[in-house]
C-alpha cells in the first residue's frame, strides 16, 4: 500500500435523485464532523423530484479548507445512468466504489475498485418493501465506514439526530449500515491509501445550513411578519421560520407575536411585507432571483415611500428556471439598482452560516433605522448546504426601532411634525405608524411626488429635493452597515476583494498562491453595500485588486468602477459562473494567470 492519505480528500457519491440518498449522505457528513474532522458537504442536485442523476460531495480537510474541490479521490457509484461518467471522474490513484449490479467495463488501471452488494443487502434488511429502496443507500454508508474507518458510534449519533431519536428508524437504518460494514469486512481487502482518523478540529462548531440560520436570526431580530412564495433555494428559509417561531415566540398562553403567510406570488409577498413594515412591524420576505424581479415594483415603492423591510435573496442561477438548483452570485447589480428611477439599495452579504444568523437580526435594525428595504444576498451553496460554523451568538446590541413617533412623542411636539422633513440632517426623517391615535399622527404614504408633509405634489423642486435627501440617507447608511473583514500584511501589493460564500475558496487560494508561486495577497471580504471608506482605503493601499465573484460580468467590479472610478485601473475582475461553488484551484489559477500577463 502506498503512503496513507489521512483526512485530506474528497468523496463524491453519485445517486438517483429522490432515492433517499440525501439521508445517507448527510449521515456520512455528520459522522465525520462528529469525529472532529473539518468537512464540507455540497449537494449538487438537479431540478427534479425523482429520477435524474444527483451528486453529493464531501470534502475532508485536516487543514480546515472547506471549499469545494474539483478533484475527486473517492467516487461512490450507485446510479447506473451516470456510472461511466462517474468512473471517469475519479482522479488517478483514487477509489471507485460501485453497486455490483451496475454493468460497466472496469477498465481503469490507475484506481482501486470495490464492489458493493447494495441491492442484495437491502433485500435482507428488516424493513417494508416500500422503504427498501431508501434504506439501500445505507449499504454504502456501511461499506465506506469499514473501508475508510468511519466510527460507527459517530454514525449512530448522526442517525439519532436525523431521525429525532425515533428508535425504529434509527435501528433499521443502522442495521443496514452494519450489514454493509460486516460484508466489507468479510469480502473486501483494503488496498487504497485513504484513511479517516479522529481529530479535534470541530470542537466549538455546530453544523447547519444558512437558511435555518437566517430564519433563526430573523426570530432573534424580532420578526413579526413574513410573507413568502415557494422558490428553490429560498423556501427552506421561510419553512424554518415556521419550525422555530412557535418554539420561541409564543406567549405562555400560546398566542403568537408574529405571523407568517404563504402568499399567492412574489408580487404579493413583498406587497404584504411592505404593508406590514409601513404599519410598524418587523417585516420580511425571502426569495430568489426570479422572485426578486417580480418584487422590483414594490421594492421601488418601498424605497421611495421609505418603508422598512427585509428581503432575503438566496441566489440561484439564471432567469426563469435557469439552473434553479445551482449556485451563483448573479443578483448583485440587479438588487443594487432594484426599482425605478434612481435607487441604490442597502445590501448585506453574509459569508458564513453564522453571519446569516447575525445579519438575520441586524437587518431589521438597519431597515428600521434607515427606513428602507434592506436586502440580504445569500446563495444556494450557503443557504441549502450543511456547513460547520461557529455557534450562533446572541444579539449584542438592543433593538434599534429607528425614528418612530408615538402618541406621547407627538404630544410633546404639540402635534407638529412632518413625515419627510430632515430634522436631524442625516436624511432620515421621523415616521408614525397606523394605530397611533394622536389626531395629527396620520399621513398618506405614496410613491407619487410628495412634499415634506407627505402631501401630493408634482412640483419639480420638492421632487428633486426628496431624491437628494434619499441620497443623503444612503450616505448615512455607510455609518451603519457591517464593516468589511480585512486580512492584511504590510507591503503586500495584491489585494483580493470577495463576498459571500466564496470565502473558503479565497482563503485556500491565498495559501495555494503563496505556496506554489510565492504570490502573497491580502483579502477584504465585503459584507455590505454601500461601499465605505474602509473599502476605499484598502483599495488605495494595493497596486492591484482582484475582485473574485461567482457571476459572468464581475458585478461587484462594475459597482466598484462606478463608485470609485479613480481606482478603476487597479481593478481586475475575476469572475466565473458554472452553477457550482468556486474552487480554490480556480481562484488561484485565475489570479496567477492575470499576474503573469502583467
Amino acid at each position: 500500500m502506498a503512503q496513507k492519505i489521512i483526512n485530506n480528500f474528497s468523496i463524491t457519491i453519485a445517486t438517483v435523485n429522490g432515492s433517499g440518498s440525501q439521508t445517507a449522505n448527510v449521515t456520512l457528513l455528520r459522522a465525520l464532523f462528529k469525529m472532529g474532522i473539518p468537512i464540507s458537504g455540497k449537494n449538487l442536485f438537479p431540478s427534479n423530484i425523482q429520477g435524474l442523476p444527483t451528486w453529493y460531495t464531501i470534502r475532508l480537510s485536516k487543514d480546515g479548507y472547506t471549499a469545494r474541490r474539483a478533484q475527486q479521490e473517492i467516487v461512490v457509484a450507485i446510479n447506473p445512468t451516470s456510472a461511466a461518467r462517474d468512473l471517469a471522474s475519479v482522479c488517478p490513484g483514487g477509489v471507485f466504489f460501485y453497486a455490483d449490479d451496475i454493468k460497466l467495463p472496469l477498465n481503469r488501471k490507475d484506481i482501486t475498485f470495490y464492489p458493493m452488494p447494495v441491492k442484495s443487502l437491502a433485500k435482507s434488511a428488516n424493513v417494508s418493501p416500500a422503504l427498501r429502496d431508501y434504506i439501500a443507500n445505507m449499504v454504502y454508508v456501511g461499506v465506506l465506514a469499514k473501508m475508510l474507518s468511519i466510527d460507527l458510534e459517530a454514525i449512530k449519533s448522526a442517525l439519532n439526530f436525523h431521525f429525532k431519536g425515533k428508535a425504529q428508524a434509527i435501528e433499521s437504518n443502522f442495521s443496514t449500515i452494519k450489514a454493509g460494514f460486516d460484508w466489507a469486512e468479510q469480502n473486501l481487502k483494503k488496498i487504497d491509501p485513504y484513511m479517516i482518523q479522529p481529530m479535534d478540529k470541530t470542537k466549538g462548531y455546530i453544523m447547519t445550513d444558512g437558511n435555518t440560520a437566517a430564519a433563526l436570526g430573523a426570530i432573534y431580530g424580532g420578526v413579526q411578519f413574513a410573507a413568502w412564495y415557494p422558490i428553490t433555494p429560498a423556501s427552506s428559509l421561510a419553512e424554518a421560520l415556521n419550525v422555530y417561531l412557535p418554539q420561541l415566540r409564543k406567549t405562555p398562553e400560546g398566542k403568537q407575536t408574529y405571523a407568517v403567510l404563504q402568499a399567492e406570488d412574489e408580487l404579493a409577498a413583498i406587497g404584504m411585507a411592505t404593508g406590514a413594515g409601513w404599519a410598524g412591524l418587523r417585516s420580511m420576505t425571502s426569495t430568489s432571483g426570479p422572485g426578486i424581479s417580480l418584487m422590483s415594483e414594490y421594492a421601488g415603492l418601498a424605497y421611495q415611500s421609505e418603508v422598512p423591510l427585509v428581503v432575503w435573496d438566496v441566489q440561484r442561477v439564471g432567469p426563469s428556471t435557469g439552473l434553479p438548483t445551482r449556485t451563483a452570485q448573479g443578483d448583485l447589480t440587479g438588487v443594487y439598482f432594484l426599482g425605478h428611477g434612481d435607487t441604490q439599495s442597502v445590501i448585506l452579504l453574509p459569508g458564513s452560516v453564522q453571519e446569516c444568523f447575525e445579519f438575520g437580526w441586524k437587518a431589521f435594525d438597519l431597515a428600521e433605522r434607515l427606513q428602507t428595504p434592506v436586502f440580504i444576498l445569500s446563495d444556494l451553496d450557503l443557504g441549502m448546504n450543511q456547513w460547520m460554523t461557529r455557534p450562533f451568538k446572541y444579539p449584542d446590541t438592543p433593538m434599534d426601532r429607528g425614528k418612530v413617533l408615538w402618541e406621547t412623542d407627538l404630544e410633546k411636539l404639540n402635534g407638529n411634525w412632518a413625515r419627510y422633513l430632515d430634522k436631524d440632517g442625516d436624511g432620515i426623517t421621523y415616521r408614525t405608524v397606523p394605530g397611533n391615535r394622536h389626531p395629527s399622527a396620520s399621513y398618506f404614504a405614496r410613491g407619487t411626488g410628495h412634499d415634506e408633509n407627505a402631501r401630493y405634489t408634482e412640483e419639480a423642486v420638492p421632487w428633486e429635493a426628496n431624491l437628494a435627501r434619499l441620497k443623503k440617507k444612503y450616505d448615512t447608511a455607510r455609518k451603519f452597515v457591517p464593516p468589511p473583514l480585512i486580512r492584511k500584511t504590510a507591503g503586500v501589493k495584491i489585494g483580493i476583494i470577495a463576498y459571500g460564500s466564496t470565502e473558503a475558496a479565497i482563503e485556500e487560494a491565498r495559501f495555494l498562491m503563496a505556496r506554489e508561486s510565492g504570490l502573497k495577497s491580502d483579502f477584504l471580504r465585503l459584507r455590505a453595500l454601500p461601499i465605505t471608506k474602509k473599502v476605499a482605503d484598502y483599495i488605495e493601499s494595493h497596486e492591484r485588486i482582484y475582485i473574485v465573484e461567482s457571476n459572468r460580468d464581475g458585478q461587484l467590479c462594475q459597482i466598484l468602477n462606478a463608485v470609485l472610478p479613480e481606482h478603476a485601473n487597479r481593478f481586475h475582475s475575476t469572475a466565473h459562473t458554472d452553477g457550482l461553488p468556486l474552487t480554490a484551484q480556480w481562484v488561484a489559477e485565475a489570479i496567477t494567470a492575470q499576474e503573469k500577463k502583467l
Partner: protein
Amino acid sequence: MTAPNVAVGQTNKIGLTKNEYRGLPSTLCQGCGHNSIANQIITACYELDMVPENIVKFSGIGCSSKSPTYFMNRSFGFNGLHGRMSSLATGAIFADKSLRAIGISGDGDTASIGMGGFKHMVRRNVPMVYIVENNGVYGLTKGQFSATAEVGLNLKHQGINHYMPVDICMEALASNATFVARSFAGDAKQVKELIKAALSHRGISVLDIISPCVTFNNEENTFHSYMWGKDHEAPLHEIMYTPKLAEIILDGDFPEGTVREVSLHDGSTIILKKLEKDYDPTSRAGAFQMLEQAQVNNWLVTGLLYIDISKPTLTEIYNLVDTPLNRLSESDLRPSLETMDKINAMMF
C-alpha cells in the same frame, strides 16, 4: 401633521363634526361617481361615530385610487401599486387588529391587473371594506377598456370591445367572499347603508359600486352610465343599517315576511325591506343565480347579494396576542438569552 380642524357645526356622539371626516378637495372630474362615494364614506363614518384614527385607508392606482385622499384626513393611508393594494392591506392589518381598513380600487385595478391578488385577499377573508369604483373604463390613462366593459361597448379612441366582461361580484363569490354587495353611485342612500353594513362586517366586504365616468364612458346606452343605471337599477331590497342598541323604526306598516333582518358581529343589524323579489342574502347559490338572471335580463341588481358571518377572518386565524403587534417591545419580540444555548444545542 397639522392640527385637526376646529370643530364647528353639529357634532356626533364622539364630539366630531362631519368636517373632521372630510379629506382634501377632490381633483377628479366634476360629476364623477367616485366623489359621490367618497361623500357617502364620510357620512357613514360620521353617522357611525367612528374615530378617524381607527380607520386605515388603502388604494391601488387609477382615478378610484386617488380618492382615499378625499375623505378621512385624520386616518392613515397608503396609495400602493396598480393592482396590488390587496397585498399591501393584507400585511398592514396584522399590525393592529383594532383598526378598520377601507380599500378603494377600480375595475382596472381589481379586475385586470389585480385580479389574482383580489381573489386571494377575498379567500383569506382579510378584514377590510373593499370598494370597487367600477366605471368600465381606464380614466387616468384616458379612456381604454377595462375588464368590466360590456361586449359591444364603443369608445371614442378604442373602437368596439369584443370580450366578455368580468363580473366583480361573481368573482368575489367564487372566491368565497363573506360579504358581497353591488350598488350604484347614483343611489346615494343605498351606497351609504351598504358602507355602514360593510364596516360592521368582520371579514372582507366587497362593494362593487357602478360609478359612471362622466368623461370617457357615460353615453346613455352604456352599462356604466348614469342614465342606464337609473333606468335599469333593480334593487333587491331597501336596505337599512341600524347600529347596536338603536331603536328600529320602520316607516309604514309591514306585513309579516316583508322584512328580513341580518345580524352582524358587533351587534348591529341590517334590515332588508322586501321589494319585488324575495331575496335571501345568506344563500351563495341564490346569489350566483341572481347575478346570472341580472345578466340575462339586463338588470343592474343592487343591494346586499351575499353575507356569511360564520367564517373567521385572516387575523383571527392567527391567534395573535391581544396587544397590537406594532406596540410590542423588545422583551416581547427577542427570545431570551437562555434560549440561544438551547437553539445551538438543537443544531448538529
